[in-house]
């Protein structure tokens, strides 16, 4: 299962690298949906081979979001903040994974193995749909201008790059 996921992720990173800039954000949202479908598919699989196939597909989605989100962050964050922005991103994602691993035993006890996995998959799809509703598929990889003291009245300076 882990090898299938990693293999899928490697394929996803290659696919993401070949996307056109304007397709990157929609690609991330689609990748998140595929990730959730892969996990949910794995949960519902009656045999190991079907679970492996589902995980391979889910891994592709994970690979696309992995590359896409980092590339967008690097393209949008001011150069002098790149290290701090990447550190916050890495910290948030690592913390989330640790938290998820921490509650997994509780979820298994509550919902059973398949139920816990299915709920994680469905919740992932729901999060991706929330991203769609928030318009995150319109994000563009354009640098966000630094908010200087004179312009602090512009509350959402970064939203200029959110093309609707």
């Amino acid at each position: 299962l882990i090898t299938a996921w990693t293999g899928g992720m490697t394929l996803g990173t290659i696919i993401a690298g070949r996307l056109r800039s304007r397709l990157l954000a929609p690609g991330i949202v689609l990748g998140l949906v595929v990730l959730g479908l892969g996990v949910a598919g794995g949960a519902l699989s009656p045999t190991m081979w079907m679970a492996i196939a589902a995980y391979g597909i889910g891994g592709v989605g994970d690979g696309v979001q992995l590359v896409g989100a980092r590339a967008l962050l690097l393209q949008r964050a001011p150069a002098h903040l790149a290290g701090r922005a990447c550190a916050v991103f890495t910290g948030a994602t690592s913390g989330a994974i640790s938290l998820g691993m921490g509650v997994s035993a509780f979820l298994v006890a509550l919902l059973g193995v398949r139920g816990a996995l299915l709920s994680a998959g469905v919740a992932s799809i729901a999060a991706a749909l929330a991203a769609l509703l928030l318009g995150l598929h319109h994000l563009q990889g354009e640098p966000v201008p630094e908010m200087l003291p004179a312009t602090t009245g512009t509350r959402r300076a970064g939203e200029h790059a959110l093309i609707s």
Partner: protein
Amino acid sequence: MQRNPDHSPAAARPLRIATALQVMVAAGNGLAYVALALRVYQETHSTLAVTMVLLAGGLPVLLLAPVSGLLLDRLPMGRVLAVAGLMVAASLCGLALAHSLMATILLVLGFGVADSVLQPGLTAAIPQLAGEVSVLRATSRLQGATMGGTAIGPLLAGVLGSLGGTSTALFLDAGVSVLFSVGISTLGLRAARTSAPQGADDGMGAGLRYLRRDRPMGLLVVVVSVMLGFLGVTMVVELFLAERVLHEAPRAMPS
């Protein structure tokens, strides 16, 4: 300009070297965590002890994010990453020799502190390494290398662990980290801090404040983190699925 058949620019030497280094680092991380988890479990037979070791490696990445980010932005990036690589090497040498649980946890904590700089640093360095390749293509290349390394690491841990024991595997991994430190120093990464526009937010928490200000990007980080939280659940639950559910299915079918 040299071009690939698909008309995208060829990767420059620094990006090619960084790709090889990324494979080594990811493989080394995978090797170290698998070898250590196995050793701790064999010595303690406690899943709590294994969890504590894994948390000691992972928590610094979250807790030290503001400090690590500031170091990466303010100090010469190549040197910061090289020092972090040497710190990993020192921790791994210590881990190869230490066997008590407390010493293991403290040394893994040291490993985690260095990793809190390496992980974001290798991402933040991408625009400097990309050269004429787009940031997206360079990110794809380096993350692909990470995945390749992640796949190789546990395999190496198994092979090296069975041939020469966990200590040999950890010493070899330490050697790889020293090689990484030397390699990263040759890539010509930024030697001086990038100057911030006058009056711009440039403090320790500026990374977090930037993500609040760039609301769409901040929301994307939240969504991706939530997703990865659920992925964290699946990372553990899939083991139960493989062992308890799917392996039992063929045996259950005839009855």
